[in-house]
Each structure stands twice: as C-alpha cells, then as structure tokens.
C-alpha cells in the first residue's frame, strides 16, 4: 500500500459510523490544539471508537478514566504539570513550557452525570479547556434522552406513544451555566463549521482560566439522519437560530454567527431527522414545532442573529453564486 502522509493528531482511523459528526469534528479540534496537548476524555463514542486495545488513534497523550470525571482528571493532570514544572525549575533553573490540558466529553457526561465535577473545575479557575461534543442524547448506549435533548425529541427513554410526543423538557442551558461559573471563554459551534471551531480553539488559548466550548455534532443513527446530511443538519441547526453559534469572552457576547439570508424555518431542520418525524403527523406535533420555532426566534432576538441589511446583501450574493 502506498504510504501517504497524514499529520492529523487523531490518526490513522477510528471505528465510528459513516457520517459521524463527533469524530470528524474531533480531528479539527485536536489539530487546532496541536501536539503540545494532553487529552482527558470521558466514556462515550469518541473514546470507544478511537482507543480499542492496541489500536489507539491518538497521537497526543490521552487518558480515559470514567464517564463523569474527565474534568477532575484534567485538574489532576494540570496540578501534576505545575508540580513538575516547579521541580524542573528548581533542578535546572529553566522555565519549561506547559502543555494544553483539554477535556473531551459528550453531553451525557457534561450536562448530566459529570455536571458537579465540571462545576468543581470551573470553581477552581484552572487553565483547562473543556470541549463538549453535544449530540443531544446518550447515543452510545442507543439514543436515550439526556439533559441536552431538545423538547419534542424522540429518544428511547422519551418514546412516542399515545401519551407522549417525545422529550418533555427543554434543553439545559449549559452555555449560561458556564458563563455564570465564570468561564473566561465560552463558545458554541456546530460540526458544519470546522474553520470556526479551529479559530475558536486558537482564540481560547489566549485566555488563562477555565474555558468551555460546546459543539453540536449530529449522530447518524441516534438522530435518524442520512450519513451524507451530517453537515447540512449541523448547518441548519445554526442558521435557523435553534443552536446559536456564539463567542462569549469574560461574560460578554463578542461574536455571533448570523442566521442565513435564506431564513430557514425550524421545519427545514427537523424534517431531515427521524427523531422529529412524529412532529409532522398531527396537531399536537405541530404545536411542539411552533414552540421550537419560538426558541429559534427568541435566540435570534437575544443574540442578534439576524443579518443587518448590509450583511443580508452580502449573504444573498453568495447565495446567487
């Protein structure tokens, strides 16, 4: 087989599904951090599909401990690095460079089971970047609902039936939580915008303290989408205003990704996904769709996602091309 060069830090491969939003995003994430990085990963698909015994795909130091503790493990790593740096300074009188310490975790770990430990990490003001790969449910164990599953989502623990139209809770607002805990850099993005993700990671590295970046990563089997539609779905999540793409520094919203000039509606996003199929079947479902559209409208209003006239013209030019 012809050799070909690949400098990805998540390489040579993984066992995730075709069209996996998480793993294609993870490659951009780890490449943006660069080789001087230590990863603390939670249990989940990213871990399972990249670290089979003897077949690790990670070209950076990587540790997986448990589902709920990647943040505390990262705190331990950082403390050890500080201690070693101090020790090194004492013996060699030289300042050594500190590696980046990053956490990778899914929404199950972040929103639910590891929530308390993440709060502890924020509280300690440690210089750690926490990346949440948000696929809105426990997809690894067969698409159960998590605190991240949006209203109306069909999951295996919020099944549809005579008495149920899917998840009856609103998605937990982890971005607001991270800001309230004093995270110095908070951002969101989706799998449709790898350049945005890379830029945000590079930007985040300029700040000392806890950082939180939450990325929507569509799950092909869990969401019931076509493997070729991962990027399209992830883009519509942002351009409908349903998953606002933001950059928040020291508590202030600095940048937002404007919604599309095409003004897509929430139906355009939902219609591509099996987990929302039931919403189109009856009036009860349509009521939920209305509620979801209201969430989009509110986001557009709160974060100023609507393009200005000038921006609108530029966006329309792109559309015509």
């Amino acid at each position, binding site marked *: 087989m012809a050799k070909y060069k690949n400098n990805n830090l998540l390489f040579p491969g993984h066992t995730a599904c075709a069209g996996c939003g998480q793993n294609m995003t993870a490659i951009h994430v780890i490449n943006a951090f660069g080789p001087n990085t230590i990863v603390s990963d939670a249990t989940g698909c990213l871990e399972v599909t990249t670290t089979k015994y003897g077949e690790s795909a990670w070209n950076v130091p*990587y540790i*997986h401990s448990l589902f709920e503790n990647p943040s505390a493990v990262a705190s*331990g*790593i950082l*403390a*050890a690095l500080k201690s070693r740096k101090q020790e090194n300074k004492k013996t060699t009188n030289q300042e050594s460079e500190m590696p980046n310490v990053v956490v990778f975790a899914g929404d199950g770990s972040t929103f639910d089971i590891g929530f308390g430990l993440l709060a502890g990490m924020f509280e300690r003001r440690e210089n750690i970047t926490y990346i949440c790969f948000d696929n809105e449910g426990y997809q690894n164990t067969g698409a159960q609902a998590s605190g991240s599953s949006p209203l109306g989502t069909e999951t295996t623990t919020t099944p549809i039936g005579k008495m149920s139209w899917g998840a009856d809770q609103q998605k937990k607002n982890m971005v607001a939580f991270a800001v309230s805990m004093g995270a110095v850099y908070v951002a969101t993005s989706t799998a449709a915008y790898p350049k945005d993700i890379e830029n945000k990671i590079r930007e985040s590295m300029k700040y000392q303290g806890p950082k939180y970046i939450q990325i929507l990563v569509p799950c092909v089997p869990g969401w019931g989408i076509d493997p070729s539609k991962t990027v399209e779905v992830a883009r519509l999540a942002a351009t409908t205003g349903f998953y606002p793409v933001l950059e928040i520094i020291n508590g202030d919203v600095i940048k937002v990704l404007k919604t599309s000039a095409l003004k897509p509606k929430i139906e355009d996003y939902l219609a591509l996904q099996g987990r929302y199929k039931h919403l189109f079947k009856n009036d009860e479902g349509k009521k939920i769709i209305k509620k979801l559209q209201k969430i989009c409208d509110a986001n557009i209003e709160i974060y100023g996602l609507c393009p200005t006239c000038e921006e609108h013209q530029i966006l329309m030019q792109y559309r015509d091309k």
Partner: protein
Amino acid sequence: MKKLLEGSQAIAQIINRCKPGVVSAYPITPQTHIVEDLAKLKADGEAEYEFVRTESEFAAASVVLGASAAGTRTYTATTSQGLLLMLEVLYNIAGLELPVVMTCANRAVGAPINIWNDQQDAMTVRDTGWIMLFAKNIQEAVDLHLVAYKVAEGINQSVMVNMDGFYLTHTMEEVNIPEQTNVDRFLPKFKPVDFLDVKNPKTFGYLATQKEYQEIRLQLHEKVKNSRSLIIKTMKDFKNSFGRTLEPVSTYKTAGAKTVYVCMGSIYGTAKIAVDELRKSGKPVGLVAINMFRPFPDKEILAVLSKMKKVIVINRAVSLGAEGILTTEIKKALYGKCKVKIADEIVGLGGRNVSVEDIKNLLV
C-alpha cells in the same frame, strides 16, 4: 526524636516528608485532621505539593488519578461514605496501575449514619485491586506510609493504608517521625516510566473487549497476589533503615497457645491485655494481627493457625447475610489444610467500645 503527636498530625507530617507532587482530598470525619494539617503545612510554606481542593471524594480520587497518570507522586485520604463514593474511581486507579497512596481512617457505613470506627468501609472495597495495609497503632500508621509509597512505585499499583478512625486519628501517642534525609534515602524521588508526556504520547484507559479483558484482569490479579514479596522485602528494608519491625502478620504469645484471637487494626492493643490476663489465669491463648489484608497473607496465617485448636476471629465488618468478612478470609486461607475450629465474632461496630473483658468473654 520522639514527639507527642495526634495520629492525624503524624500522618500529615510523614506525607509531607514523602514529598508528593499533588495532594487532593475532601473533608470527612474522622479523616479531616489529616487534610486540615496538610492544608496548613502548605499555607505555612512548609510543603511543596499542589493542594487541590475538590467538591467531593469522587473528584478528589479523580484528581489524584489524573495527577498520578501525569507522572507525580500523589496522596489522598478519606473514610466511610467518602471511600464508597470513590469506589468507581478506586477500581479505575487500580486497573490503570497507578501508584496512588491513600489513607483510610476506618469508619462505619450508614444507614444508620455513624461517624465512629469499624472497618466496614475498607472491607467493602477489598476487591478493587488496591494493596491494603492495616496499622495497629499510630507509629505503625506513620511507618506504613513509607512502605506504601515504596511498594506502590516499585510495581505501579495503588496502596491504601488503613488506620482506625478516632482510635488512631484523634488520639495522641509518642511518635517517631523519620528525619527528612532518612526518608529521602529510603524513598528516592519518583521517576515515572509511563506517563502522560507530550514528547512520548501514550494512551491510558483503552477499551478492552471479550478478546483481551479477561487476560488483563487476571494478570492484575496475579500482580496484586505477587506484590506480597515486595511488601515483605520493603518491610524488612524498613527495619534495616529505621529499626522498627513491620510484618504482614503479627503474633503475640502464640507459642504454646491452643486458642488464638485474630484481629486487625487498633483493637490489637486491647486484645494483648486480654491475652495477658487470660495467660495469667492459665488459659493457653495467643493473638494474631493481620497487617496486610491485600494481598492476603495466606501462608503466614496457615503457619500460625494450623497449630491451634481454635481460632476466634474478631471482625469489625460484616458481609450482611453471610458472616464477618475477616472470618471468610481466614477460612479461605485455611481451607482443606487444617482442621482448626473457627469462631466468627462480630464486635465494635460503629465505635461500640470493646473492653478487655469483652474480648476475654469471647473465649467461652
């Protein structure tokens, strides 16, 4: 030089002399004085470790897991509910073969809630893969921590030093805290081989399937069993360096005895007096203490107990619905090898005082 110290204070001082890079713990009675003293040593500029304050024992155990994987000497301490909250992480630390050392200030487990001493906490985590040592007095608790680090780092396996809550953590004793130079000689700087290193990236905590998992777990089982030789050697080295005896099993007046008590931890002191008094009244009794619970000292136990007619096992923890946990362990060590009678006695749960008379009464 001997100093009059509270048990917890003595532990904090020896831990500081072991020079861990990272200390992380969460307060819980009766472990609190240990972490308070470690925090104070740091606050006074007398310690160099990073002290990571956490929001739970689960986080504290995870912090030392991460710190150990990143190549530093680490320390944590807990007890009871805290130890049980750590359980998932304890399995993980042992499975990742990290040389973490912790102190467990043994305490009862709820419900009903009870902050006083027994050994239910430690007995509940006995299957995790941690090496488990038990101290009979404060001096031994101090000394066992030196042994613990040396063994942990010698074979890359976690070690738990158990000391009875309150009886050893909150009482005062004349203690010899080894001098820094002697500690440094016995326990040189930690030099990790495999750790999270950007210059040599490695993966920790991989996924093992049906193909590999069993072999990996059974290898770990063998490793913990075989750690006995290093533990015994380290205890001998300790005696050569510091002059004090440490051994996996202690015996007292077993020569000529027909009945022996078997115990673990600080109750040994009371039991010794009971044995002395019984001997005076002509009863041929002796006493055995288990100081190394994992790996279990089968060989040493068999050597002493096979000569006896009766063994009275003094349990401070129960496997509810079965029997005293130490009794099961003793039976396992003796099974098919001798015909000694074994009495299962459960005493002193939740800090209930066990007097000399109580122990003497177990003989009947």
